[in-house]
């Protein structure tokens, strides 16, 4: 059996095409151009988060603090503006904090050897708890009237919301980083076999810190786009399924949880399938419980398939790997 012709990416691509064909026939208005735009738009924020998650997972890690960083950094930023802080100062302060949290994640994983799943779970909870209890008074913070985020939220090019372009630009940048830069290629080596990567002189640890900083920055951008379109940021999003959806998109697209495999193309395919599926389920009036059931079944199938196609490498597997 030739496994090259039977990889997960192709299976998902075929599944996506099948769903599209079914929807185009069964659901009038599905292929409507505005519906297609709204599908792409609905997965932009999810896709940006999935790009960050992909970078981390390819390097054999996972970042569970992304949604917390996304919501709380922007909530703090908006709260600073409400308190009258200067725009530039607020932005610099929050950016510094975002980079700091990413660096803490990376440092604890790289130098303290704590499994990433625990580190990022803890920092995510800490970020949420600290900002929510110390900084913001209620669980939603609005965008101040007349702020530039309002303009960004209303921005359209050829009728397409700006979120879509930001997502595509970031996807392209991530593609260039992973494919054509030295540090990007090293992500794969470090993810495939960290010990060997270290032995040949790759700075495995500083690069690990870099990956978590990148995912934190991508979370912040995703948060700003959310705030721009809703004109407020709701910290309740931490309790939503968003984080699972991000992992769903990443894993479904075919980025192996054991690291070293996959790329931006996988994120795009995964995001497309999930976006189309959610859209179809909404148009067909499928209830939320069934939507969750369908999504979880797909995730389970993807993880089983991932385990089968990308078995753990006994030689390089470590305690705490996912």
């Amino acid at each position: 059996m030739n496994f090259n012709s039977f990889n997960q990416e192709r299976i998902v691509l075929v599944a996506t095409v099948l769903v599209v064909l079914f929807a185009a026939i069964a659901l009038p208005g599905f292929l409507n151009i505005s519906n297609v735009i709204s599908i792409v738009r609905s997965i932009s924020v999810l896709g940006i988060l999935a790009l960050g998650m992909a970078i981390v997972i390819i390097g054999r890690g996972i970042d569970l603090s992304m949604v917390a960083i996304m919501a709380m950094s922007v909530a703090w930023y908006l709260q600073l503006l409400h308190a009258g802080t200067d725009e530039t100062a607020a932005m610099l302060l929050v950016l510094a904090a975002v980079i700091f949290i990413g660096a803490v994640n990376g440092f604890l994983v790289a130098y303290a050897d704590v499994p990433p799943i625990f580190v990022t779970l803890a920092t995510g909870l800490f970020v949420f708890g600290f900002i929510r209890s110390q900084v913001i008074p209620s669980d939603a913070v609005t965008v101040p009237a007349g702020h530039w985020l309002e303009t960004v939220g209303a921005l359209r090019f050829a009728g397409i919301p700006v979120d879509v372009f930001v997502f595509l630009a970031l996807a392209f940048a991530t593609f260039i980083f992973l494919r054509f830069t030295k540090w990007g290629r090293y992500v794969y080596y470090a993810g495939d076999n960290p010990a060997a990567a270290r032995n040949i002189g790759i700075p495995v640890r500083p690069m690990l810190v870099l990956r978590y900083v990148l995912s934190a920055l991508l979370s912040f951008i995703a948060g700003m786009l959310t705030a721009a379109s809703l004109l407020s940021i709701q910290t309740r999003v931490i309790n939503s399924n968003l984080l699972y959806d991000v992992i769903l998109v990443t894993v479904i697209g075919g980025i192996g949880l054991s690291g070293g495999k996959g790329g931006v193309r996988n994120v795009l395919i995964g995001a497309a399938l999930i976006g189309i599926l959610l859209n179809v389920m909404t148009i067909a009036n499928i209830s939320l419980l069934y939507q969750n059931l369908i999504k979880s079944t797909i995730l389970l199938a993807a993880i089983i398939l991932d385990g089968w196609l990308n078995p753990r490498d006994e030689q390089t597997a470590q305690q705490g790997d996912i």
Partner: protein
Amino acid sequence: MNILKSAIGAIAIATATFAALPAAAQDPGPEAYKNALEGKRIVMVPMAMGFDLAQGWAGYLSIEIPNFGGVFETRDPNWSVEAGAQAIAEAITSDPKPDVLIVMAPDMNSYSKLMRRAQKAGIFVFLIDNPANFKADAFFGGDWTEMGRIEAKEAVRACGEGSSKQIGLVQGDQTNATSLFQYNGIVEEMAKHDGFEIVAEPFSNWDATTSRTVTTTMLQQHPDICAIIDFWDGDAVGAAAAIREAGLSGKVHLIANGGGEKSANCDAIKNGTYGAVVSTSVERESLRYAGNDEVSASKQRQAG
């Protein structure tokens, strides 16, 4: 002008009867309150702190209860059902036990067993805002079916006779009583109006981004929709964004439901984001509650 009409809209008051407390219900005087509350410990477990309903309850209770010599504490499960269950379990086993447990149930069933345990341990259990499958000592909160009816009436009024008569819903979830009862009320009221139909009823899971996405899809599938009822103002900003982005502001009347978060809602009504907000009056509910008075919930169309 829709906004103006909403502003003039009459105050609709629906009264629901609730069980009165056995103690001190006869004498409303301060002496009786003092006797009832002196040295008593009252613990509130809302779904989360930091949103209008919970802050409203906590705001009034934390003034009234200590004034009459009681102790008032809150726990913040922060929208987590598990954390809420833990807080209740911890309250039951704590020493001294609280005398009263005030619970805002996240859904119909999750806390039922725990609350029964609390009752068995001799704690009075009160439910606020959200009904549950549990015989509480008292329930304080809105009549959600009636809220649904009022929302449906407002939708029918806003659409008018000459309209498409198509109405869309953005429901919350399938387990929370407020969502289920509102839905029943809306369906019941709609049946009375000839030609009006609910063309789509997606769920937001109380999340603003989801509300935006499903509303965008709904408006594309049914461009003639004349009114949308979103089950909570916490996520209706998403539905509002979808309407704005579809260029249908002023054409689609958005009706949201809220717990009295006045500043944001009134701004939203004035600038046309919301058409109307049907609101429970948490001030009146909680003030009467603290006074151990017979409570009647009142709903009013709040127009800023």
